[in-house]
């Protein structure tokens, strides 16, 4: 029963992410106004028929800003998750295939990185590299790479002793080929699950850093930046705070749920 129910929510989540992606790509076509157009006469308008989700302190349309903001959010998600996967998989494979010494050293480094509050690490990196989207994406990518490194290393160590790997080694298959033919395909399921979760985490960190003024810089629309502005007008214009946060939470919820469902599908034991 639960599985059925979850499937239903899973489909909605996939649909939501799909719509978000479509909105991000087709932002100029679907958003009712230009996200940076100011209309001082209409500042702080409550949601009505002209501005469905209201306007902000410059009279900018909140719906349009949310739609354009999804561009930064999804871009950060895609790029930082990719960086994390590439660094993490490389380190994990080297650690798993390499000798004891290499393994210990790399894992010590990864564990140290992992044993540090993520948001603080992101803030530190950004504060020294400068504020902006590129810095934020690199920071998030580096921070989440240990998760993938551990995953890939553990799997590699487990797979390494399987007899089919032994057999391919006996046949003289080069290491690189073994990695690509046997090890990576076996890992893919778990990596994809972790990828969706990292995507969600990346979106939250981008929003948090932008909220603190360290991430996306104005006038580029970003959900975190919208919330930063909203904080000063909480009494006058609560809709400025409500809608961007709601979309952010829904996006994170959808990614988490997709990750959870995939994890259950790939590992039926979790359900017990």
């Amino acid at each position, binding site marked *: 029963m639960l599985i059925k129910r979850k499937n239903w929510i899973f489909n909605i989540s996939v649909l939501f992410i799909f719509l978000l992606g479509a909105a991000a790509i087709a932002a100029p076509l679907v958003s009712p106004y230009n996200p940076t157009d100011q209309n001082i006469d209409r500042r702080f308008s409550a949601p009505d028929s002209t501005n469905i989700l209201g306007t902000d302190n410059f009279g900018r349309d909140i719906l349009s800003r949310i739609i354009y903001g999804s561009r930064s959010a999804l871009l950060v998600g895609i790029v930082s998750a990719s960086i994390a996967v590439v660094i993490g998989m490389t380190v994990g494979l080297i650690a798993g295939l390499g000798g004891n010494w290499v393994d210990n050293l790399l894992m010590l*480094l990864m564990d*140290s*990185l992992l044993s540090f509050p993520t948001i603080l690490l992101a803030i530190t990196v950004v504060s*020294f590299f400068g504020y902006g989207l590129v810095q934020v994406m690199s920071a998030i990518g580096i921070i989440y790479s240990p998760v993938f490194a551990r995953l890939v290393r553990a799997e590699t160590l487990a797979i390494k002793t399987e007899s089919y790997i032994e057999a391919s080694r006996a046949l003289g298959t080069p290491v690189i080929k073994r990695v690509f033919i046997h090890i990576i395909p076996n890992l893919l399921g778990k990596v994809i699950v972790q990828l969706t979760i990292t995507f969600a985490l990346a979106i939250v960190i981008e929003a948090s850093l932008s909220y*603190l003024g360290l991430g996306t810089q104005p006038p580029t629309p970003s959900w975190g930046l919208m*919330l930063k502005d*909203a904080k000063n007008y909480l009494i006058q214009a*609560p809709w400025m*705070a409500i809608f961007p946060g709601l979309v952010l*939470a829904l996006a994170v919820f959808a990614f988490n749920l997709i990750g959870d469902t995939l994890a259950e599908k790939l590992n039926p034991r979790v359900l017990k």
Partner: protein
Amino acid sequence: MEFVFFIIRRFLRLLLTIFIISTIIFFVIRVIPGDPALVVAGLDASEDDIQAIRVRLGTDVPVAVQYGRWLSDIVRFDFGESMISGASVNKLILERFPLTLTLAVLGILLGLIVAIPLGVLSAVHRWSFWDYFGMVYSQMGMAIPSFWLGMILLLVFAVKIPIFPLFGSDSLKNLILPAIALGFARAAVILRLTRAAMVEELNREYIITARAKGLTDRMIRYKHALKNAMIAVVTVTGIQFGYMLGGAIIVEQVFSLPGLGRLFLYAIYQRDFPLIQGGVVFIAVVFSLVNFTVDILYSVLNPKIRIS
């Protein structure tokens, strides 16, 4: 004796982690292109001014010497003076830390009050109303960012229904909403883990033995299973507590609380490098100490772990 060795081993690992983290921080700071002295001095500074700032920042000597100084600063726990106010970095940090610590403790307490009963109820009555409620809560907890929750809490409980103050930090009442914002997501993680640990314990063989002995369900659940499930909960609570110190940076900003997070953030805005470095290392040390304590506590609760 075995336990003493365990503690020593963990302590050495703690020192190693702090060493590695501070080395990473050092290289992140130094390796990046650009001269922090130029950033601090501004555009119209003279070469002498810039050189003076380099001396103050300690960037006028070779990197190897800087690294040596950096390590000795950490060993002595002395990060120099703030470039903006001139006050000792240690003093600034220690002034602000109690508020952040109080906030994190309150947050974790609120989190535990929600998470443990709900987690246990979910595990004992699986697929019941409470279990679904718990699932919905944990999904929400993981999806709702703390700073947005903080704003919504302010909107509802300080603006619409003014039972909590909008500003201020001098009374406990000022800390309730921030603690909820901070603890909400943490509770979701603890709840998930409590449920999983409880379900696992209830499926163990000793539960069947206990039942065969004629113990009541109550005894089995709360005296045996819960006690063992708590071992895992303690660990995750400790880790979550560490994360709260990081999360406090954002929540303090939402509620305008003058804690460590705000100090750190303003240091970043003003490019006060000694204060940034001190702040990062301080939080890293506190975080590592929390992890260390959790490890020790875990091994006290679960003696099997000491051998590995």
